[in-house]
């Protein structure tokens, strides 16, 4: 049986664990994105205030404060460490575990050794609550897609009383019931574009999708969606590779901590973003053939002159080399930069990603090696892996990086930095 375990309001739990003055069950609590721009994680109490995912911080700050709640910033060192502990704990209970995301883990249970699956799931739940102070939901079924469906049901507030956060879909009746009550867009692997198209053909629920004709799905949609259908019917067909490799763009952007006017500072930001994106690219063993740079002013300050502009460059050959990508990015930035505006945000997007083993169309007369990552880039990667990110970097990223937002709401690195250890009164 496949298991999907995911943490309820992960970032909020991570922050609350070291801030006992806030009651996780009663006080409205949330976490903001790293530029303190939007709400990215919410507990039940803040949801009950009507605060939506992605809402701008400035719109909700007062409401939260009025109810004695709190909003934290993001600290990905802390979140990463606790996420790692979550995955490690689960490895004690499940086999074939896969770290699917920060707060989601797939794994398997052997039904020959585990008599009462539901009870076992509750033991996992209690252990994670005790050892890490996090609440989690578990979905369990024959395939990964059905396990994910189970965890989706486990999260539903209106069923919580009954499920207690654990849903085992171990009979056809239960599976069909869950599928009938789940809109097709909530099925794992079905995106928003696919949903629209499916709706046109009268497919609205997971149950409709399960009963669709597979060869028709293959013809009209994709092989990947056909696999999803097979999974809904209880036949394992999805490999995690399908899910992770399907990313077709990488975007790195950040709002500035202060309005940026000068090209040099903007350049630093773009270089830093391009470097980070290139690192991601290499981690996914991908290459990009198109790069887009965008910059814009603060659209919330309509009184000030506004400027939004982006520039795309089609690369002569796919690459994942930092210095090459940075020079294209700077070139694009110089083409669109205009003096006299207060820039709020800059970003880099890599598109048309291709995988290592994809076919490449090479230029007949070009002497450039398309898939070549310079040895300098590889050495930088290696050093940064050993000594921490940004141990060594391109000088054009700048040193003071005063454009970076100061995150004074972020929780400290309680678990990874000696100077940030939480205080115990004695």
């Amino acid at each position, binding site marked *: 049986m496949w298991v999907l375990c995911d943490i309820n309001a992960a970032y909020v739990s991570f922050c609350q664990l070291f801030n*006992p*003055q806030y009651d996780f069950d009663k006080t409205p609590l949330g976490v903001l994105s790293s530029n303190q721009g939007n709400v990215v994680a919410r507990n039940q109490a803040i949801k009950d205030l009507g605060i939506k995912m992605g809402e701008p911080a400035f719109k909700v700050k007062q409401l939260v404060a009025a109810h004695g709640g709190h909003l934290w910033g993001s600290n990905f060192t802390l979140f990463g460490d606790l996420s*790692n*502990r979550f995955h*490690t*704990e689960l490895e004690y209970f499940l086999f074939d575990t896969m770290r699917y995301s920060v707060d989601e883990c797939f794994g398997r249970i052997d039904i020959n050794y585990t008599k009462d699956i539901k009870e076992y799931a509750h033991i996992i739940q209690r*252990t994670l*609550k*005790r*050892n*890490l*102070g996090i609440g989690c939901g578990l979905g369990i079924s024959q395939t990964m897609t059905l396990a994910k469906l189970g965890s989706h049901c486990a999260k539903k507030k209106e069923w919580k009383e009954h499920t207690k956060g654990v849903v085992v879909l171990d009979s056809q009746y239960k599976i069909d019931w869950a599928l009938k009550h789940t809109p097709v867009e909530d099925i794992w692997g079905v995106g928003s574009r696919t949903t629209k198209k499916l709706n046109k053909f009268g497919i609205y629920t997971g149950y409709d999708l399960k009963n669709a004709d597979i060869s028709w799905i293959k013809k009209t949609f994709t092989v990947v969606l056909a696999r999803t259908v097979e999974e809904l019917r209880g036949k394992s067909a999805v490999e995690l590779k399908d899910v992770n490799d399907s990313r077709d763009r990488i975007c790195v952007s950040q709002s500035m901590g202060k309005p940026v006017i000068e090209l040099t500072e903007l350049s630093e930001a773009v270089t830093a973003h391009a470097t980070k994106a290139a690192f991601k690219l290499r981690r996914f063993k991908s290459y990009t053939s198109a790069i887009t740079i965008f910059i814009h002013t603060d659209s919330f300050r309509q009184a000030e002159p506004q400027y939004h502009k982006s520039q795309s460059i089609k690369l002569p050959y796919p690459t994942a080399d930092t210095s090459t990508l940075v020079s294209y990015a700077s070139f694009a930035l110089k083409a669109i930069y205009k003096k006299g505006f207060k820039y709020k945000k800059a970003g880099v997007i890599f598109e048309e990603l291709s995988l290592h083993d994809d076919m490449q169309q090479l230029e007949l007369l070009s002497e450039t090696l398309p898939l070549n990552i310079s040895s300098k880039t590889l050495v930088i990667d290696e050093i940064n892996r050993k000594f921490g990110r940004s141990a060594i970097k391109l000088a054009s990223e700048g040193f003071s990086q005063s454009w970076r937002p100061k995150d004074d709401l972020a929780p400290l690195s*309680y*678990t990874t930095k*000696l100077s940030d*250890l*939480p*205080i*115990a*009164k*004695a």
Partner: protein
Amino acid sequence: MLSKLTPSTTELPIADFSVAAGFPNPCEDHLSDSISLDELLIKRPSSTFLFRVSGNSMSPDITDGSIIIVDRSVTIKTGRIVLATLDNEFVVKELQLKNNKAVFISKNPDFEPIEIDIDENNDWDTHVVWGVVTGLIKVF
């Protein structure tokens, strides 16, 4: 007569020290890992957290400025030193359980014990006791 050979399935270990031609080093048979303080102090890394102590209510055992090791997976029992959340703060105390009361005792006699009622419904053990203190680090 030639017949097909079956490959050996026995794996031979490769020596992990270099083979030199000189006098063999007698210590090589007795190599072991060096002492690891991590292993001594942290039994279960995924549920272990460090806290900095502030105050003298637990002195002379635990003094101001030292670091305590807290393992959340360890069973809460009477007599254990625990990290508790009292009055919205983390505190280090010794836990004594008696007659439906959890008593948090300071080692320093200048500080009064703090009592909390235990009843079936208030989840005192998960809500009040954050974790069990399993070690102390002090750097002079």
